[in-house]
């Protein structure tokens, strides 16, 4: 197909000048055109949440947005969470609380939780569980994901 357009995806502060078709989803562009494979694709129809990234600070399903729609916007992915060797409190909390097993859904959960807590730091525990129902995990039974996010929320509020 010939309708490719030049766009710039700004992922974790880094500009990626890419040329993509209109139909290219943001998820595919991040992974295949920009080589940032930490964002995973689990269903491509907006249910599982594995591809959740932050676009201008909002957690969105990257499989339900076209790459061209994110042209010039600030995108954050799991690769950008840590500050050098220093992990984000959410990453640390997932490790300390065993909030992951196979790790496939993990980037989506991390970005969802970080995105929501940055926007709504004082969100209630109950609403947090509701937010976490956005994404699917097949390994953990969610027990330790909830524990990890609650622990990180406390730390994020303090900082």
């Amino acid at each position: 197909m010939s309708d490719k357009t030049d766009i710039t995806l700004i992922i974790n502060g880094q500009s990626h000048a890419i040329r993509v078709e209109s139909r290219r989803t943001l998820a595919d562009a991040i992974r295949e055109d920009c080589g940032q494979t930490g964002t995973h694709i689990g269903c491509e129809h907006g249910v599982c949440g594995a591809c959740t990234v932050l676009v201008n600070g909002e957690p969105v399903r990257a499989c339900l947005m076209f790459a061209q729609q994110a042209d010039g916007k600030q995108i954050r992915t799991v690769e950008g969470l840590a500050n050098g060797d220093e992990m984000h409190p959410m990453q640390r909390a997932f490790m300390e609380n065993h909030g992951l097993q196979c790790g496939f859904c993990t980037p989506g959960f991390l970005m969802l939780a970080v995105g929501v807590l940055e926007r709504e730091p004082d969100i209630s525990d109950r609403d947090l569980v509701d937010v976490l129902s956005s994404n699917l995990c097949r390994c953990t039974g969610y027990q330790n994901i909830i524990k990890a996010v609650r622990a990180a929320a406390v730390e994020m509020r303090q900082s």
Partner: protein
Amino acid sequence: MTVHTKGSGTTWVGRSIRRLEDPALVTGRGRFTADMPATHWVRFVRSSVAAGTIENITAPERAGIVTAKDLAKLKPIRPMLSKFNYVAVGQPILADGVVRFTGESIAAVYAPSKDQAEDIADQVEVEISEGAPLIDAMDALAEGAPLVHADTKHNVIVEGRIATPGFEDVWKTAHKVLHVEARSHRQNATPMETRAGHAAYDGSTGRVTLTCTTQMPHLTRTAVCDILGIPESDLRVVAPDVGGGFGQKMSLAPEYVLLVWLARKLRSSVAWTEDRRENLIASFHSRDQHVQLEGAFDKSGKLLALRGDIVANIGAYSCFPTTCGVEPLMALAELPGPYDVRAYDCRSRGVMTNTCPMAPYRGVSRPVITFVLERLMDKAAAAFGIEPTELRRRNLIDKFPYTSATGLVFDDGSYKETMEMAIKAIDLDAFRKRQKIARDAGRYLGIGFATFSERTGYGSPAFAARGMEITPGFETVYLTIDPSGFVEARIGSSPHGQGLRTSLAQIIADEIGIDPEFIKVVHGDTDRSPYGWGTFASRSLVLSGGASLLAAQKIRAKLLKMASHFLEAAPEDITLQSGSAHVIGTDRSVTIASMARAAYHQTHIFKGEIEPGLTETGTYDPSGTFSNACHVAIVEVDIETGRVEMEKFLVVEDAGLIINPMIADGQVHGGVAQGIGNALLEEIIYDETGNILTSTLADFLPPTTHEIPEIELHHVETLTGNSITKAKGLGEGGAIGAPAAVISAINDALSPFGISIDEMPATPQRIRAALRSSGKLPSNGKLA
């Protein structure tokens, strides 16, 4: 580093250390198959009908396409059993003239991108002359039913029967006979990562590297090479990070064979990433069973005899390597569960239909048979007018070793103890009071108990009993301390989320005195790891753990011998700890790193008394060990809508010695969540034409945070001689017990209506229909 320390803290085993796997996975540096670039992307053209004959395939001009005629030299997938009236059927890599289920691959197209491959696949026209599909196993059993495979005499291709001598005589003595007719509908394991494969041809060696989402890399290599007729040395199979498997990634995917064949043909790299729809319709299914069960009890409620008839819908083909016998034969051998019953008569059949092939899924049959057996026990308790737990108390095995009516030998366990602990922890008496108060107010709470055994860590003897041509079993570990003093354990298991790298490092660390962070466990690469069977059947910790221990014991012996040279002390006076050998009661020590260096670079100092190098091999092939647990579910049923709200879930688990409590708990949590999903939500539904109506995650419904309640865990640690690490497996137990507990709780809640929910999943629609059929629902929804 340590989050939670159990016991004395002087050993690594027993401590909840953080997983060594995690740093890469939380930072986006995990490497999954779909992350790899490829020159060609494959898209499969799949059948839109369940049964028929392919008349014609038309592809757009110049399209890269492969059909069955290109693969004429390839053997079909044709796993074998030598027992149980097994009839071998072949599965072609691409449908060869006949399609047998919706979603079966008919052709493979390839293009430079996934999008283009899908565009081309869209334009491939397949003309199929449709036949009459068989969807339900009962229809396929019927006299005169069409044959799914024309070269078989009937659709039953595996049939087993176990009947104990004198069964009828025992049966006649029954005081009460209870009957359950149960149905378990079809489910899909649904790992979050779909299947994916990437085959890359290396021009200089002619070898292909197949990177794929498999749970058994070595067996994948064997199978692909057998089918293609090439030496195993020409193929390397790599399982990189794998995003969950739950059994679905254990069986050979015909798609991988195609990828290797195509990479060799194109002398290039080719890749395929399964999409979610393909996963739901054409990856493996499971749990589609009809079970009839009758129990004969004496006056005291003791189970005297059990009679069963199991029909498993095994789909259109037989999966490799377990064969389609895996569900029916597992059910046949393990149906009596943890109850002491001496008379047993059961028939179990695997029936072909025009549906997606069945393959192992976490628990394999046991979630189904546990649910049915526990329904029987609950019904018996009601008939005897006693608490369901009291009936179980009268029947659970408590003397070990116990040899079951089917010949299984149960090692030490805690069947009664775990139940008593569960009763206490959940406070059954308090619940009954609360239940009564709620009921008076028109609210229906229920409690359900499931007590069960989980056969784990079994080696080749257990598999041999099934008559498998390919008999899995042993595991091997190559353990090396390299000249730099770092440790590498190369294993044949292939973990994909179980944290095995961490648990094995803990076991090895305790033997050789080197901290786990310096121990690298290497798996999932046939070039690097010893031939092994992979990760499935709750086996890896027992088998690879045992093999790791054996190898580490040899390394330990050698290190002590070397240390005795360095320290001029007897080996028995030396300990290994924190990276050094110490003479007990002195300050004399030598680092293991310096001894490792010497083992390679200063071998002359040992004067030929110690062999050069520091590599040892451990192989372990045990008979197996039974874990056990008691699960308790508390639910509330909304009688107006049929909705089930999970209030609480409690597990008392006995998996022997717990190596890493944090990881063990995580396994139970995950299993229970899948069990709850299986019990309430998840169902693959075919319409009468064989089309799947649940091909999206908006229709096939794994649970979310909302549907999973708090799960409370308790452990009992019964140490067994059947596992040299004393650890038992526990990967499947959560999923085995949870459906039974949940459905039992639903039935307990609805006991005033005199109905029995014997179907899984127990959807709101089914519950509401049963309630309506009770005739006890007044029109305004309140109980009369």
